[in-house]
């Protein structure tokens, strides 16, 4: 069951059952893609278990959109389109993941065990937020759960893979940030020059695998030369 409520005078909020799970999230994805195409919708923000929909009041109204979304929700179940599955290489060496020792201390695991756990599961992209193209991935194996850094970094390198609470994520561009950095991927999640600059979307699936520093530089070079593209990392 969804709940629809006003969000200011030119937006509405669709709330699903307030919990983090893949089943609910699939409905968020399916409904947000349909609702995003409704007449008068300017933009929409899908999250874990909600969708924020902003509209132009000169083209539609709250009550009309509410009715349209309710009707869509009723026949939504069969239209769930699975996302893409990516296999993303990550170099977990200290040079690329400066917080891996701190995380090792906190979790009482060795860096090698951290890598084994982090690469042991596939992650669902629950939300894109914080900065353009930043994927919030879950769920992280409980054993890797750790708090954010007490003092956020002023600058985190693009491609950095971090941990925060029960989540893991990837910085698509350099930005300030407080996540614990355990590695870095040479695969650009964000390519400004592309017509469609974002590699990953909410609803996609990501599995990480470990690479050496040397492999990191090889892949980085191949992207620069145009010999590798994002789609080469589909599982």
């Amino acid at each position, binding site marked *: 069951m969804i709940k629809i409520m006003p969000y200011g005078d030119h937006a509405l909020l669709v709330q699903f059952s307030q919990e*983090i799970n893949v089943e609910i999230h699939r409905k968020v994805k399916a409904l947000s893609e349909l609702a995003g195409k409704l007449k008068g919708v300017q933009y929409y*923000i899908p999250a874990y278990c*909600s969708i924020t929909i902003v509209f132009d009041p000169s083209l539609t109204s709250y009550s009309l959109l509410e009715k349209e979304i309710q009707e869509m929700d009723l026949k939504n179940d069969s239209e769930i389109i699975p996302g893409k599955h990516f296999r993303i290489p990550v170099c977990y060496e200290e040079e690329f993941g400066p917080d891996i020792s701190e995380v090792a201390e906190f979790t009482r695991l060795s860096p090698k065990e951290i890598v084994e756990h982090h690469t042991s599961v596939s992650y669902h992209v629950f*939300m*894109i*937020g*914080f900065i353009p193209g930043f994927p919030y991935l879950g769920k992280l194996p409980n054993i890797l759960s750790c708090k954010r850094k007490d003092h956020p970094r002023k600058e985190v390198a693009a491609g950095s893979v971090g941990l925060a609470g029960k989540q893991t994520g990837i910085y698509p561009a*350099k930005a300030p940030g407080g996540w614990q950095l355990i590695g870095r991927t040479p695969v650009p999640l964000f390519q400004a020059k592309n017509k469609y600059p974002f590699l990953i979307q*909410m609803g996609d699936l990501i599995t990480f695998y470990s690479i050496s520093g040397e492999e990191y530089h090889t892949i980085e070079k191949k992207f620069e030369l145009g010999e590798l593209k994002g789609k080469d990392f589909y599982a």
Partner: protein
Amino acid sequence: MPELQLKFMKAGMQTLVQDLGRSGHQQQGVPISGVLDRQSAKAANEIVGNSVDTPVIEITVIGPEIHFDQSCKIAITGANISPRLNNEPIANHRLQNVRAGSILSFGKMISGCRAYLAVAGKWNVNKWLGSASASTISPELLTPDSVITKGSTISITTNDQSIHSTTSIHQTVFTNIVRLRVIPGPEFEWFTKVAIARFFSTGHIISQAANRMGYQIKTSGMEHQKEMISSGIIPGTIQITPDGRAIVLLADAQTTGGYPRIANIIDDDLDKMAQMKPGGEVWFSLA
């Protein structure tokens, strides 16, 4: 058609190229961006005969110094930062004819916080996702023309058409105290009746932490320990942090957040917020 170069001899405090922003990419976490005071920016473009989505220069508190190498038509709206053309004071909200070789400068801050400079013609500036607005991340890569520094230049193709501008565009007067109408947000009920009564019955002071992402506002008695699952936030959303600060989100804010949303400012009133400075007083009332 003549090519005009604006050359920035001084940058000012925060001088940016902005238009109406990049709506439609927020599902990818892209901030809307765009001018903060949309009514003033649109008025500036209307006065010079541009379409309202033409870029403008957004000038905050301390103005730049600009050299014009060709003649052109300009208008300044929004905050009154004592604009001067070749050292002679000029008025806001008027069409100004600028001769080749002129210098536009600014002085004392009289009212408001952000001024808008429109220049008649086609702006030849780099766009990202359909907008010339300065990007909040990697601006040097994505919107290299839009963050003005000393020595920056902007190229504009001017035209000689006569301008049929509306001469009587209403100029807003900005004060240091403002009342903003709001609609209760999804987490409104999370706060006690006492906290809500206080929120609406006193003025709140804007702190120094006020920028294009949002304004922090001091409140009292709003502390909470509620956690919510991150959800969408938009310009005008008012979040309450656990230590009880209110944050009014503006155009450069991120698209998702995890603090309870007590209310949303109605869209018509949000432009007024953009003209407030730290130390200014805000009153909220239910729309």
